[in-house]
């Protein structure tokens, strides 16, 4: 039986599949359907220092093999998360990734300070939310701005720091290199692609913000290319995500160099997706006499 455990920045994850931020709630929502202990971890909904009610109007739109969302970082705020959602997450028996986004640099710093003294295992810095004006995308497009926010956060951060990249960055390899230079311990990519839908009958954009974020299998080959590019560029661990829905999809990202993967939109089509994908990975590995992910990781680099 293949060993699917993953070492991420010194911590052993129970598996290579992590529930992606914004699709997995705080993990506990899936507790009766999924064996959470088999997950590599769960990324919290994107947190902002003071919480947000999220966007008005349409929030979801299905496209061929994809989903456009405009949630707008609806979250109760870091303090509320620490007091209410985090204790529940601690019962899951898997690693906890606090996804921290939004606001100005000072808010990122303050959010990080608050999370420092909690049982959170990793901080995933979200500089890539396309749905909020100050949701971080401003930092996620230009490498220079990303460098500034990452270095300021790194200076106060006591947790392993993962920076989540946007595919909307001007240059993904440059962005990745800048974040690592600024102190990122690991990278995760990609967040959603900026996209759009139009309601013909109303002759209006579907979303109030006009543009919103596309996820799902539709983006997977592009996400894979970006993960490959980043793995070629940086030495730190990379967590790959973007439209992964099967074990084979996940293994593609591992062969492109990813240390672990996140699964998001697939959880909506199949709430047991994270367990199923892990199982499918194990089956492929057993069939091909691959004992650990190490053996195949980055074999396409």
């Amino acid at each position, binding site marked *: 039986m293949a060993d699917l455990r993953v070492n991420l920045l010194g911590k052993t994850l129970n598996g290579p599949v992590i529930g992606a931020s*914004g*699709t*997995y*709630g705080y993990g*506990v*929502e*899936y*507790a*009766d*359907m999924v064996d959470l202990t088999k997950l590599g971890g769960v990324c919290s*909904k994107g947190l902002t220092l003071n919480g947000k*009610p*999220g966007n*008005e109007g*349409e*929030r*979801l739109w*299905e496209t*061929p*093999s*994809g*989903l456009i*969302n405009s*949630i707008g970082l*609806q979250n109760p705020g870091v303090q509320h998360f620490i007091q209410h959602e985090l204790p529940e997450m601690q019962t899951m028996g898997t690693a906890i990734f606090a996804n921290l986004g939004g606001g100005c640099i000072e808010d990122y710093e303050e959010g990080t300070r608050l999370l420092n003294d909690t049982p959170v295992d990793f901080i995933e810095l979200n500089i890539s939310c396309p749905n909020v004006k100050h949701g971080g995308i401003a930092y996620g497009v230009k490498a220079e701005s990303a460098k500034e926010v990452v270095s300021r956060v790194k200076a106060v951060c006591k947790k392993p720091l993962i920076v989540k990249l946007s595919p909307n960055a001007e240059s993904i390899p440059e962005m990745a290199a800048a974040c690592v230079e600024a102190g990122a311990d690991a990278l995760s990519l990609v967040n959603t692609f900026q996209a759009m839908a139009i309601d013909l009958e109303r002759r209006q954009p579907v979303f109030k913000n006009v543009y919103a974020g596309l996820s*799902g*299998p539709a983006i997977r080959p592009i996400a894979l290319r970006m993960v490959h590019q980043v793995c070629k560029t940086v030495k730190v661990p990379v967590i790959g995500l973007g439209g992964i*829905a*099967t074990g084979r999809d996940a293994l593609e990202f591992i062969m492109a160099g990813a240390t672990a993967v996140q699964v998001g*939109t*697939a*959880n*909506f*089509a*199949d*709430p*047991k*997706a994270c367990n199923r994908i892990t199982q499918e990975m194990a089956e492929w590995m057993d069939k091909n006499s691959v004992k650990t992910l190490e053996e195949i990781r980055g074999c396409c680099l």
Partner: protein
Amino acid sequence: MRALNCDCKVLENIRLNESICLLKAQWTDKDHCPKAGQFYMLRCWKQDEAPLLSRPISVHEWDAETQTISFLYEVRGEGTHKIAALKTGELLNLTGPAGNGWPVEQLLGKKVALVGGGIGTAPLYQLAKELAAKGEKPSYFAGFRDEPYRMEAFAPFCQTTALATDSGRFGHHGLVTELFDPKDFDVICCCGPTPMMKAVTKLALEAGTEVLVSLENKMACGIGACLGCTCHTKNNGAISVCKQGPVLKGEDVYG
């Protein structure tokens, strides 16, 4: 209680008219039985097939004795077309029961009106049955565009039933709101198109009558994880329709 995910056997899937179907499925988990007003995410196509998302559909009827759930649904798009094609013995994937459901206990001892519009009548049926089982038959007012459905099914569990249609071919020619005076009731439980629920809420509040509405927001997960179905309420902030709803106070939604 959290939602479960399992494949359930289809016992029957019949067409009531051109666009309305009634599906019965076997629900085997005795510890997670649905309540009136709750819903499930339905799927009978592979996870990598279109449409991407499962379809949220309310519980029309729950028979505890035979452990069967009925879904009354309108065939509208790709997902419901696939559900409508299901045959007896085939499997339907269900995630649920989800949502809060109607507060049946709080309705006891009160004069209750059930007001439904079109396919929005679906989640009112189990409520009528549960109220009637406690010896408190509600009044039922239904509005349809044209041909009504399931009116006769409601009759045994309701004190009165009344019908309005846009076409005038059946029942009262006009709006469902013209069928009753909200002053005659303590609580109105309403489900239907948004303009109807808004109008019913307005009339009920003017009459000083409590009103509960069951919402049908677009949703991805159905279990409170994606925050796609959020309703920005007047008094309770941003709430997830799939988890804290779908049944909410009318004034909180439309007030």
